[in-house]
């Protein structure tokens, strides 16, 4: 059981006092601007869209996980009545290109082979082999059956550790299955272990899981009257228009990608899914085409989370100080590279966790196999090491007779400390606070209710980055304008996965321009008509498009207040806007956007000014003077003053890390948090009941607290599924969990109400001091669960998911 931390009254100082927050809309709970359309069934998702005359597409997928592709005979399918096109690799203008992820900076080894349709060798079961477009879906399905493919099954390799060996079966056309490796070297690891009084060494395994968004991959595409191929698809990256154009061999500005509201993404729609197939079929048929994956197809053939084997050896002094950590992580990249190198780099930097460890040695590898390819999934490589390092800490604590909180408090990094990869954490680091608060809220455990019941509590802290890796030189753009009637328009390429990405921009623009949120309309996700905001990945949108929107809105605000100042004959820095009225507000400093030479900018939004004499400031004006915003707008428009701004926000750009030592900045900032859990374990059956789940994160500043809570609650359950019941089970590359009946995600009966505690340090680099929360929220649950179960039954499960069978095995019952 966890000890109360009464003896630790002296609490670390909050890193940044933060300016007193007097926001009009920011930080206030608001219904999302898309909520009403969604709840009344009005929202048109990608698969709901219909275009007259559209054809229906189906994908033929490989029968084997590893095979030579000998021949494909499509004649019978082509002859079928109602079939308009059949395509294989030879029909694709550029079937092999590289995967790109919306960045403009070329990043060499981080790009992998993007093969549209299978060619030469099959690399995973479910690989797309051919495409059909037909007048009805039924005809397309029947046509797929008529395509004859000749395979020569090959041996294949299905274990990344095996795949690393010198004579292993080669998945691709390279000389090795090892895609890349990274390392961290800090200090002297041998010396470190000699200093340790206690050493814990374990191997942890985590399984393959699916994103299981409720909306399977879908899209509709057509050629518009100017010959631009337009794809309306459920995607996290409209910037894929470049990659699609490369495949089709057309100019970039002849491909347009629009994304409507997504029915969930979680990283699974970060890679291209349906878009290229649609574009090719539109190009070849000249007709509109629709494609929706079935759920089985989605589980079979879209990217998955990397399974990892992680070997950790951690040493601590008898006082609990971590002195040495050696870790080797091997990830299963599946059949194609996709984002594996990137995920691996995240795991490498995250491997030690948010702790100060004197000597660190980390080696990581990502390896091709003939399993389903793995790529981005919420957390992007931070989750797997967290399971290992948080389990290790609890084992150390047990051996040292310390509480889990005690040992962590001895080692947590704070602002100004450096990660093992050399990066100094210059922004808010409130991990310790989150742990204390989460445990406080958890309280004392209940007593067992049955003889076979054991109650346990567990915690896990995490670090998880937000913002893309800094060597990608990330940028984001947004357009803000005020209309003549005082309403506000935002145009931004932001892709909204359901996390409120677009709604946040409305709230930010509303704050900047002093209007209610309902006055803001956001047009989003159109590569032709909205400034590109960058991918909705890496928990970067609030940080990037939020800042870009803020920058644009702040510019329009400045223009409006300058005009208002002239109208009133006073200094505009003493004016503010709220509820559509411009008014005199001398007590707070004005908003400022400061941009430096490298186009990195900082935005500040007021703070107490200090003593001023109101009458001096107001001039001839009554201090209660207000002007309707619309009046200012009309006057400004008449003067030809710009009431619009398209702004680009540049994240700090850095160089690639040093691959020899693993030293470098890599990430702009991190979010830190803790999840605490209470479970009841039935030792007769191994069943686990999750009784309580508390999530505490430093979110910097909430834009919309309802959204932030929603991410924390949803993330906790998404992570809990990973820990408790989800697994894509493959047998020699063949999926044994083809549908949601076998692939189990938590239902409403499997989880408790999640309690959320938000710390708002103001110390983030997002707008208004916000930190990202989407991914961090889901990282701690699996180790928290493992720790809670261990607390309950006295013995540990080292691999996920923690099923009843594994618990019984741990208890040596079976």
């Amino acid at each position, binding site marked *: 059981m966890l000890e109360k931390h009464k003896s630790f009254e002296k609490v670390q100082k909050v890193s940044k006092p933060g300016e007193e927050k007097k926001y009009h809309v920011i930080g206030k709970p608001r219904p999302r601007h898309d909520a009403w359309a969604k709840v009344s069934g009005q929202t048109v998702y990608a698969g709901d869209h219909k275009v007259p005359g559209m054809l229906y597409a189906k994908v033929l997928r490989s029968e084997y996980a590893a095979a030579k592709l000998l021949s494909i005979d499509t004649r019978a399918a082509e002859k079928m009545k109602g079939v308009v096109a059949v395509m294989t690799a030879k029909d694709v203008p550029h079937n092999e290109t590289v995967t790109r992820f919306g960045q403009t900076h070329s990043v060499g080894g981080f790009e992998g082979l993007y093969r549209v349709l299978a060619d030469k060798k099959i690399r995973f079961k479910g690989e797309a082999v051919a495409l059909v477009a037909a007048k009805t879906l*039924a005809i397309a399905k029947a046509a797929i059956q008529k395509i004859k493919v000749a395979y020569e099954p090959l041996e294949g390799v299905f274990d990344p550790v095996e795949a690393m060996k010198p004579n292993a079966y080669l998945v691709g056309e390279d000389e090795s299955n090892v895609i890349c490796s990274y390392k961290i070297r800090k200090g002297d690891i041998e010396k470190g272990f000699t200093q340790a009084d206690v050493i814990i060494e374990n191997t942890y395994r985590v399984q393959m899981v699916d994103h299981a968004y409720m909306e399977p991959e879908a899209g509709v595409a057509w050629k518009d009257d100017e010959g631009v191929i337009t794809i309306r698809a459920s995607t996290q990256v409209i910037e894929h228009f470049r990659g699609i154009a490369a495949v089709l061999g057309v100019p970039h500005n002849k491909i347009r990608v629009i994304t409507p509201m997504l029915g969930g993404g979680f990283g699974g729609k970060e890679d291209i899914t349906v878009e290229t197939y649609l574009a090719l079929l539109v190009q070849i048929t000249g007709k509109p085409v629709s494609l929706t994956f079935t759920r089985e197809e989605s589980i079979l053939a879209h990217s998955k989370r990397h399974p990892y084997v992680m070997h950790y050896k951690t040493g601590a002094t008898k006082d609990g100080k971590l002195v040495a950590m050696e870790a080797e992580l091997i990830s299963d990249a599946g059949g194609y590279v996709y984002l594996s190198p990137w995920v691996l780099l995240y795991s490498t930097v995250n491997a030690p966790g948010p702790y100060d460890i004197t000597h660190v040695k980390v080696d990581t590898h990502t390896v091709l196999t003939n399993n389903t390819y793995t790529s981005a999934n919420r957390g992007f490589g931070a989750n797997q090491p967290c399971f290992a390092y948080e389990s290790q800490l609890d084992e150390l604590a047990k051996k040292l007779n310390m509480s889990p909180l005690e040992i962590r408090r001895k080692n947590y990094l704070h602002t100004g400390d450096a990660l093992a990869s050399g990066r100094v954490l210059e922004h808010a680091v409130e991990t310790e606070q989150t742990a204390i608060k989460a445990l406080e809220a958890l309280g004392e455990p209940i007593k067992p209710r049955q003889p*076979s019941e054991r109650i346990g509590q567990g915690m896990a802290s995490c670090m998880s980055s937000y913002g893309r890796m800094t060597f990608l030189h990330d940028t984001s753009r947004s357009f803000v304008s005020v209309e003549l009637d005082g309403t506000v328009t935002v145009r931004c390429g932001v892709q909204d996965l359901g996390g409120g990405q677009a709604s946040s921009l409305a709230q930010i623009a509303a704050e900047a321009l002093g209007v209610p949120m309902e006055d803001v309309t956001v047009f989003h996700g159109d590569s032709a008509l909205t400034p590109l905001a960058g991918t909705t990945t890496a928990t970067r949108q609030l940080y990037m498009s939020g800042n870009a929107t803020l920058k644009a809105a702040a510019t329009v605000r400045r223009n409006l207040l300058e005009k208002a100042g002239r109208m009133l004959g006073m200094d505009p820095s003493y004016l503010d806007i709220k509820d559509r009225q411009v008014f005199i507000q001398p007590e707070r400093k004005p908003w400022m956007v400061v941009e430096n030479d490298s186009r990195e900018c900082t935005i500040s939004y007021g703070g107490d000014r200090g003593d001023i004499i109101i009458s001096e400031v107001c001039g001839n004006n009554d201090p209660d003077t207000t002007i309707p915003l619309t009046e200012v707008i009309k006057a400004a428009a008449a003067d030809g003053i710009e009431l619009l701004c398209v702004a680009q926000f540049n994240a700090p750009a850095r160089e690639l890390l040093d691959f020899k030592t693993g030293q470098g900045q890599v990430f702009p900032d991190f979010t830190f948090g803790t999840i605490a859990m209470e479970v009841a374990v039935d030792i*007769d*059956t*191994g*069943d686990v009941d999750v009784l309580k789940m508390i999530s505490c994160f430093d979110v910097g500043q909430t834009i919309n607290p309802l959204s932030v809570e929603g991410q924390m609650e949803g993330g906790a359950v998404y992570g809990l599924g990973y820990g408790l*019941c989800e697994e894509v*089970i493959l047998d020699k590359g063949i999926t*044994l*969990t083809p549908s949601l*009946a*076998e692939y*189990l995600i*938590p*239902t*409403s*009966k*499997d989880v408790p109400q999640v309690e959320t505690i938000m710390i708002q340090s103001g110390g983030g680099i997002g707008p208004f001091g916000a930190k990202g929360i989407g991914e961090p929220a889901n990282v701690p649950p699996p180790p928290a669960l493992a720790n809670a179960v261990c607390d309950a039954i006295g013995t540990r499960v080292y691999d996920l998911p923690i*099923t*009843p*069978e594994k618990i*019984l095995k741990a208890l040596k*019952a*079976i």
Partner: protein
Amino acid sequence: MENTEYLKPNDIKELLLIMTENKDRATVIAGGTNLVPEMRDGVKTPQVLVDVGDLQELVGIQLEKDSITIGAATTIAEIAKSSVIHEHFPILSKAAGELGNPLTRNRATIGGNLANASPCADTAPPLLALEAEIHITNAEGQVRTVPADKFFMDYKWTHLDKGDVLIRIVIPKPPVAAKGSHTKLGLRKAAAICVASVALMLEKDGDAVKRARIAFGSVAPKPIRAYRLEHYIEGKSVDKKLLSDCEPLLQEEISPIGDIRGSESYRRFATAAIFNRNLLQAWA
């Protein structure tokens, strides 16, 4: 699939006529919760679908003097919510309430659950323990009564022949003193395919078991009665020693497989655990 025919009889007479005319081609459908996904996947390709879901003669729960009759097309939801079933056969009530989820329960029928012949059929173990009788009509209208434990023949094989329709289940009311107990294990708390289940009915006579009926689901090619186990405990008192003596017998009765949901050893252990728990519960 485009050529599949759909017929919906208005009464039993019409049903029998349709079955006679289409004996080899007819597939009976009620709730469709198993059949519709199988049709979509191409696992089943019915030529003629005969819809009995709305047939009044096949729907409903009738309380008789010594038994209760459940129409085959009665939904699982109706059974789970029925106070009559809850009062007389709480183990059936419980099992019905744990089948699938509230949405599938509104369509799934008890007849369909049995006819689908899965070894995991949720209503099967309680019906076996309650010694229910399955009434089947052939296409000619001849009705035969098949005890539940003869209904399940082997893996995915029941007493139903081509042209047959399962029309009702008759469950004798157990003696007032009889107690039942049921547990279903799954890998999550709702909509979980059964990993192992036990249903039992126990009658005491003083300090000994007078009569025991024990059934298991998901641990054999079909839902089973554990006759040897029943025979062994009859006449004895239920205590720790008895449970321990039962263990090897139980393991002989069941033959679970290992699959994605669990290994054989896990199923064996878990089945014994819930059997012990349920037996003690019914004994108390």
